[in-house]
C-alpha cells in the first residue's frame, strides 16, 4: 500500500518487516537510548511497519504501530539523521494517525527514551497533540493533526508575518512575532 504526498514522500507498508540496513541507518542513527530494539539483521519485526521513501526512492523514515488489547496502540517514529527538521516526522505522524483511525483506534501512545534530545522530542510531540510527562506515557487523540503549512518552510527562510492570519510567528522567536505554541517548530 503506498500513498504519495505533495512533498514527494511515499508511505509504503512493509508486508513482512525485518531488521535491515535501512532500518539500521535510520533508526540506528537516533541518539543513544532513544530506541531499545536490539534486533539482528534479517530478524522479523513485530507490529505494523511503514517506510517513507523520498522522490529518489531512498528510505528517509519509518513509522510503526504496535497494538495490543483494547486499543493500546503505541507508535514508533524515526527520521534519517540527515533528513530531520524537514517535515518528514510530521508526515509520518499524520500517516500513523490515519492508520490508527483505520483500525478503529482513537488514541495513540508514545514513550520517549532516555537520551540527550528527549526535551526536544517531548516538545515536538506536545505541539502535535500529545499530552503526558516527559518520563511517562504520552497520549494523543487520533485525528488532531499538526498544520503542515509552515512545516515545509526551509530553515533560514524569512517569515512573512503579513501572511499569518493569526499575526503569530510559528515559534521562530528570533524572527519576531508572537509564539504560537501550536505552530512551534523544532
Amino acid at each position, binding site marked *: 500500500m503506498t500513498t504519495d504526498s505533495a512533498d514527494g514522500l511515499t508511505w509504503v507498508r512493509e508486508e513482512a518487516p525485518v531488521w535491515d540496513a535501512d532500518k539500521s541507518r535510520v533508526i540506528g542513527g537516533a541518539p543513544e537510548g532513544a530506541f531499545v530494539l536490539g534486533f539482528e539483521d534479517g530478524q522479523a519485526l513485530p507490529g505494523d511497519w511503514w517506510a517513507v521513501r523520498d522522490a529518489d526512492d531512498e528510505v528517509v523514515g519509518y513509522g510503526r504501530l*504496535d497494538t495490543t488489547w483494547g486499543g493500546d496502540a503505541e507508535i514508533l517514529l524515526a527520521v534519517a539523521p540527515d533528513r530531520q527538521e524537514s517535515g518528514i516526522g510530521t508526515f509520518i505522524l499524520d500517516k500513523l494517525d490515519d492508520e490508527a483511525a483505520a483500525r478503529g483506534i482513537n488514541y495513540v501512545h508514545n514513550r520517549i527514551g532516555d537520551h540527550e534530545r528527549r526535551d526536544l522530542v517531548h516538545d515536538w510531540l506536545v505541539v502535535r497533540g500529545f499530552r503526558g510527562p516527559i518520563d511517562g506515557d504520552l497520549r494523543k487523540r487520533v485525528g488532531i493533526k499538526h498544520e503542515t503549512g509552515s512545516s515545509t518552510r526551509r530553515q533560514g527562510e524569512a517569515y512573512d508575518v503579513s501572511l499569518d492570519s493569526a499575526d503569530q510567528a510559528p515559534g521562530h522567536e528570533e524572527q519576531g512575532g508572537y509564539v504560537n505554541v501550536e505552530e512551534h517548530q523544532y
Partner: protein
Amino acid sequence: MSSVDDRTGAAPLPAGPLSKIDYSERIPNNVNLAEDRRLQRALEGWQPKFLDWWRTLGPALPTKDVYLRTAIAVGRDGWAHFAHVPMEEYRWGIFLAEADPDRTVKFGKHKGEPAWQEVPGEHRADLLRLIVVQGDTEPASVEQQRVLGNTAPSIYDLRNLFQVNVEEGRHLWAMVYLLHAYFGREGREEAEQLLKRNSGDLDAPRILGAFNEETTDWLQFFMFTYFTDRDGKYQLGTLKESAFDPLARTCEFMLKEEAHHMFVGTTGVQRIVERTAQVMKENGGKATFEDGVIPLEVIQKYLNFQFSVSMDLFGSEQSTNAGNYYSSGLKGRWQETRRKDDHVLLDDARMMSYVEDGEIKEKEVRMLSALNLDLRDEYAADCANGVRRWNQELEDAELEDRLLLPHEGFNRKVGVYAGHFVSPEGEVLDEATYEQQLGDWLPTPEDRQAVADLMVPEYEYGKFASWIAAPKTGINDQPVEFDYVHLAEEGVA
C-alpha cells in the same frame, strides 16, 4: 469440579478465607480504606462525579428498584447478596481478592521474586496505561447500552442488563482505586478522564472505536456480552497474573463478577436460537421476521460481526509491547501458572497464519512477539463452546442448520488480515467479489432495522417477547416470573 487439560495441567484448588466487606463505610471496601484518610478523601471526592456520570449516562429507563447482586465478601463461597436496590443506591465499592503474603512473580524476568506491593518506577508508565485502557472499557459499555432498557424483552432480561451495568460500574471503581492509590496526581487525573471520555463523544471518545458504537438492539447486546465481554474476561485473566499484586487481586475478583456477563450472553443467544428453531420446526424449514422471530441467517450475521470486531480488540498478532509487558511481569498469559513451559519464553516459537499471494500461509514466529495471538487463540476456542451450545438447540429441534464461527481472517481491520478480503469460510477473495457478498455475511441496515422493529418492550412479569424463549430458571432460585424490576411510574408509561 476441576478440569484437566493436557497442555495446562490441573486447576489449582481454591484457597483463602472469606473476607467480609465493610458496608458501614461510605465506600464499601476490603482494602482498609479507613486507615488511609488521604486516599479515602480522594475517592470520596471522585464518588459524586461517578454518581453524576451514572445519572447522566447510565441506564435511561426510570426504575424504582432492581433485584441486584452485590458483593459482600471475596472468598470462594457466599460472596454475593441479592436484594431489591434503587440503582443509584447500589453499593459500588472496592474489593480485592484475598492477599497471599507468599505470592511470587510467576513469569518473565522477575520470575520467582516476591510480587510487588508498590509500583516499580521503571514500570509505572506501562502499568498506568494498562489500567487506564482496562478502565476505559468498563463505563463505555454502560454508555453503549444506555437506552436498551426501553425495549427489554422481559423483566428478567431487564434485570440482567442492569446487573451487567452496575457491575461494569464497579469495575470502573476497581480501576479508579488503583489509579488513586498507586499513581498519585497523574492517577487522579486519569481517573477524572475516565468519566470525561464518553462513548460516541466526537471530542473525547472512548479509547477504542468499538466502544463508541451504540448497542441498538438486544440481539447485539447478547452478542456483545457473549463475544466482547468474553474478550474482557481474557484480558482480566492476563492481568490477574500480574506481578503488581493489587492489580492481580483486583482483576481476580472482577473475573468472578464477569462470569455473570458471560452467562447473560450465552443464554441470551441460546434462548433466541431456541425460539427461532421452534418456529423453523413448526414451519418445516425457514423462519422469518413475519413469524415474530429473528431468522437464523440474521443471527449468523450478527455472530459474524461481533466475533470479528472482538478479535480485533486483541491487537496485532505480533507486538513488541505485548512481549515487553510479559517479560516485565506486568501481564501474563491466560492460565499462566497452568502452562507447561519455562514461563520466560525467550527461546520459544509458534506458528502464525498470514496472507501472501492471495493465500493463507503459516510461518514460525517468536513466541514472545506473538502473545496477543496466543491470547486470541484461547479466546476463539472458548467462543466455539458457546456456538456448540447454541447449535444444540437446532439439533434438539431436529434441524440440519447450524451456526458457525467465521474464519479468524474475516472482516478484520487489525493485524495480518487487515487489508485482505477473507470470507467467513477462510477463502481469500478479491475486493469486488468480497464486497458483492458482504451483505450475506454481515448485518445490513435493513437487517438491523428489521431486528429493531421486533424490539417492543415486554414489562409484564413472567412474559417474554415473541423472539426469545423464557429461561429455564430464574435468578438466585427465584421464579422466572419474579418481580425482578419495579419500574418507576414514568418508566411504565
